[in-house]
Structures are given as structure tokens and as C-alpha cells.
């Protein structure tokens, strides 16, 4: 009964929401399936020549070949996996560090909070990429691992600042005081009230961080600071296609499309997830 009422009340909102989530899930799911499948199978050997050099897309080479005659579609598929690993890794690292620091700042004494807030602002003023480059440069060598850690740390400042603001807003609410009165510890308040209430906004931001991480890694690779082939990211492919961008533009366009699609997909998915997690927007079951 309630269900039909709500459907009648906001049919538009509902279809739009499920649309967001579905499209996002399809795009990300596709990347996931393709990326994971490269662990077991690829259409061609990613290291060997499988056709002529700089071929146009065709049925046998869906995205054409690069200047060494390697199948580009195969390389893009592997790039999918790399991008997912980078995004997930960087978001986990950045999220854990950022949320922890943000919560600490929200609970800290006035002075400590001011110090933390100021340091975060300074960190955020640095371009993520520059920060990541510094971290990569100061580590032993360019590998996927260092890139992920570097990007994660670079992004954590933004997550921390957002967490701090969101947590402070929730902390002012009467229900926090009520929970404290009934004897809930601060840790309990964080777990029961603060995290659930800041999570929807945080989730959308983390999705943004995921996209930024993928782009940052592509940029690092483009600058030659990413992992070397055959496990190369889209950024590396873009870099390699750079010299032939006028004669064989597809070498640059295809990885670019893959990258943009993934970033859009992740954001749509997060948007959909936020709506699902919000009882005021969710329809009643």
C-alpha cells in the first residue's frame, strides 16, 4: 500500500535513481569482469606482436595495434585491471588515513584541531599529482605499489578535511548528547551515529577520489613514473601513442575512452549507493 503511494508520488525520482545505479553498476561491472579475466586470459599475448604496426581497429583487433604491433584491446583490458587496483588501493589507503585523521580532528581539543586543520589546508593546496610525484621520487623506484601509496596519501588530506567538517556537524546534534547521556562511549558514538551519518557524503567523495586516483596514476605513468609494460596502465598507453597521435589517433582515443567510462561509472555507482543508503530517499519495502 505504502509502496504504491510512494511510486505514485515520485515516479520520476525513482526511475532516475535506479537508472544511475544500474548504469554505474554495468560500467564498473564490465571493467571488473574484463580486468579480472586478464589474469587468466587475454585475446593476444600482450608482449608479442600479433599483427601489423599501427593497424586500424578491425574485427581481429578491436582497438587496432600499437607501433610495436601489439593488440591494443588486450593492453586496454590489462589497463582496466591496473586502474581498478590503483583506484581501490588508493581509496582504501586515502580513506583509512583521511577518515582517521578527520575524526581525530573533530574530537581533538581546540588547539590540536586548529593545527590539524591548518596542516590539511596546506597539504590540499599542493596539487595531488605533485605530491604523488614527490613521494614516488623519494621512494626506491617507480612501481605500481609506490604509485598507489603515494596517490592514497596525497588524497587523504581531502578526505580528512571533509570527514572533520561532517563529523563536527553531526557532533553538534542533540542525539549525540542524548547518546552520551545514556552512557555511550565516544567510540560507540563514532560507530553508531557519526560514521553512518557522514557515510553517504563520504562515499560520494571517495568515488571522486577513486576517479582522481585512476587519473593521477595515468598521469604518473604518462610522465614515466608508473609501472612498466606489460602490466602498464592506460596512462602508459597514452604516452606511447603520443608520438603517433596524428597517424594513428585510435591508440590514444581508446585508452582515453576506457578511462573516462570507468570514472563516470564509479561516480554513478556511488550516487546510486548514496540514495539507497538514505532512508528519506529510499522507498519503503
Amino acid at each position, binding site marked *: 500500500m505504502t509502496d504504491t503511494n510512494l511510486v505514485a508520488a515520485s515516479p520520476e525520482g525513482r526511475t532516475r535513481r535506479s537508472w544511475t545505479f544500474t548504469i554505474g553498476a554495468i560500467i564498473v561491472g564490465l571493467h571488473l569482469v574484463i580486468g579480472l579475466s586478464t589474469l587468466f586470459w587475454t585475446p593476444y599475448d600482450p608482449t608479442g606482436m600479433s599483427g601489423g604496426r599501427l593497424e586500424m581497429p578491425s574485427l581481429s583487433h578491436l582497438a587496432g595495434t600499437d607501433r610495436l604491433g601489439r593488440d591494443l584491446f588486450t593492453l586496454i583490458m590489462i589497463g582496466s585491471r591496473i586502474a581498478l587496483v590503483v583506484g581501490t588501493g588508493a581509496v582504501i589507503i586515502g580513506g583509512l588515513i583521511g577518515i582517521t585523521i578527520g575524526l581525530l580532528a573533530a574530537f581533538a581539543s581546540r588547539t590540536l584541531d586548529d593545527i590539524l586543520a591548518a596542516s590539511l589546508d596546506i597539504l590540499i593546496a599542493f596539487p595531488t599529482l605533485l605530491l604523488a610525484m614527490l613521494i614516488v621520487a623519494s621512494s626506491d623506484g617507480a612501481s605500481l605499489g609506490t604509485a598507489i601509496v603515494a596517490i592514497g596519501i596525497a588524497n587523504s588530506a581531502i578526505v580528512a578535511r571533509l570527514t572533520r567538517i561532517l563529523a563536527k556537524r553531526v557532533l553538534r546534534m542533540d542525539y549525540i*548528547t*542524548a547518546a552520551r*547521556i*545514556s*552512557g555511550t562511549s565516544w567510540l560507540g558514538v563514532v560507530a*553508531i551515529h557519526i560514521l553512518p551519518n557522514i557515510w553517504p557524503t563520504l562515499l560520494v567523495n571517495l568515488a571522486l577520489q577513486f576517479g582522481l586516483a585512476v587519473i593521477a596514476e595515468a598521469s604518473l605513468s604518462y610522465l614515466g613514473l608508473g609501472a612498466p609494460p606489460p602490466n602498464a596502465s592506460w596512462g602508459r598507453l597514452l604516452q606511447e601513442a603520443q608520438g603517433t597521435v596524428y597517424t594513428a589517433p585510435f591508440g590514444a582515443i581508446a585508452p582515453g575512452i576506457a578511462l573516462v567510462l570507468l570514472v563516470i561509472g564509479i561516480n554513478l555507482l556511488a550516487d546510486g549507493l548514496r540514495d539507497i543508503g*538514505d532512508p*528519506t530517499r529510499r522507498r519503503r519495502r
Partner: protein
Amino acid sequence: MNPLLHIENLSVHAGGKALVSDISFAVAPGERLGLIGESGSGKSLTALATIGLLADGLKVSGSVLLNGRQVVGARDRDLVPLRGATAAVVFQEPLTALDPLMKIGRQVGQAVRRRAKRDGRPTDATSVMSEVLDLLDQVALPQPQRIAESWPHEISGGQRQRAAIAMALACKPKLLIADEPTTALDVTTQAEILRLLGQLVRERNMALLFISHDLPVVAGTVDRVIVLRHGRVVEQGPVSTVFREPSHDYTRSLVAAARAFDNALENAP
């Protein structure tokens, strides 16, 4: 009998500015005390100081004895067992008094479970839930089962305030602090909530610290009143005395305003 709450020379400062100065009063077990004053007079600050939950930037001095224990300067850890069991608060704004992301039943259940744990009673889901439904019933919420299953945004403001009262009752406090619990409600709902509070306090023999800026509302609910202005006590005494022979100008103006309002109501067609 020892007072349940004994406040002496309580002052609250923020950055050198006095928000509450030199307040002293006591609440005996089962007594109903009203705290009145205009907006910004320090009523809510006094209430929060009572349970040691003032915001960080505020400096407190003086003495607050809650059930014989000193609250001012006490460590938060030591106050946790004191709160709830001794004093619980119903807040001004029903909208922010409930976590929007938690169903009413679970929310009241949190307080029930904490209290049951403290008393060494069972904390399994079934006994907690049955106590929750019982509490929702006691605050006269219709269809407790349905309310327990609802999100805060799905029930009315009056119902939310009842749920908040149920949450405070779940703590089984000896002192209930009601911080303008009816200000955000319409007149009919306001009267219902006041009647409910009065009844609950009597049944459970709780003490009541009732905060309001509305003299008539306080008069019908409490035995004794304290009038605050700019963070200072300007007058205190039994309701009837303060009402009939207000000694301070400010109280006089409050009474006059209330009279004028009453007359206007009586003369209205």
C-alpha cells in the same frame, strides 16, 4: 533528604564573557523545578552543565553535585555511569533529538540496552524490543509496533518528541531535565506533552527540571521556579508566590505578558 542535584555558585564563561554567573539551586528527589528566562539567558547551558556535557570551549566553575558526585572538573569517564542513571534530558528540538538514520525502535533500544546492561538484566533482542514497545506505549504513541519500525522522518514532530521522551525514560533517571520540550510544537500537542510529562514524573517519582521561556507553561507543571536573566538568578520561590507577588521587575513583566495573553484569549470571540 539530600538533594538530588545541588548547584552552588555555578558560572560558565566563554572567552572571558560570562554566560552564566553564580547560579545556586537544589532539586530534591521527586521535586519539580522550573527554570525560566528569555532566549539566551543561559537555561540550556545550565542544563548541560548539570550532566557535564558543555561544549569544549566553555569554562565552568563552581560546584555541581549530582546525586552527591561532583560533576565540575570530573573526568568524562567517571561521568558516563552517572549520566542517564541519574539524569536524562529531553531536548528542545525534536528534529535533531533523533538520529535520522536509525529506526525509532533501534534508537530507543540503544538506551534500553545500556540501562539493562548496567542493571545486569538480559540484553537480548527480544527483551530489549519488548521493553521498547512498552516504553513507546507509556508515552502514548499509537501503534508502538509501527512506530518502532519507522524512521524519524516518517513520524510527526509531536510523535518524535514522545519518542525522545521514551528514550530519556529508558535511562530510568532520577531526574528528568526537559529543555523546552514543547517549544517546537503546536498548542494542542504542547498541552498533551505537558500532561504526559507531568503524569510520568508523578508515576515514577522522578524529579523534574523543567526549562521554558513561557511562564504559564511552567506554572502548570512545576512546584517551584527559578527566574534567570542574562545568566543570573533574579528570583526564585514557589510558583504561586512568584506568580502572585513577583518581586523583580523582569518577573513582573513576564507575568504581565502572560496575563495579557490570557486576557486576549478570553476576550477573543
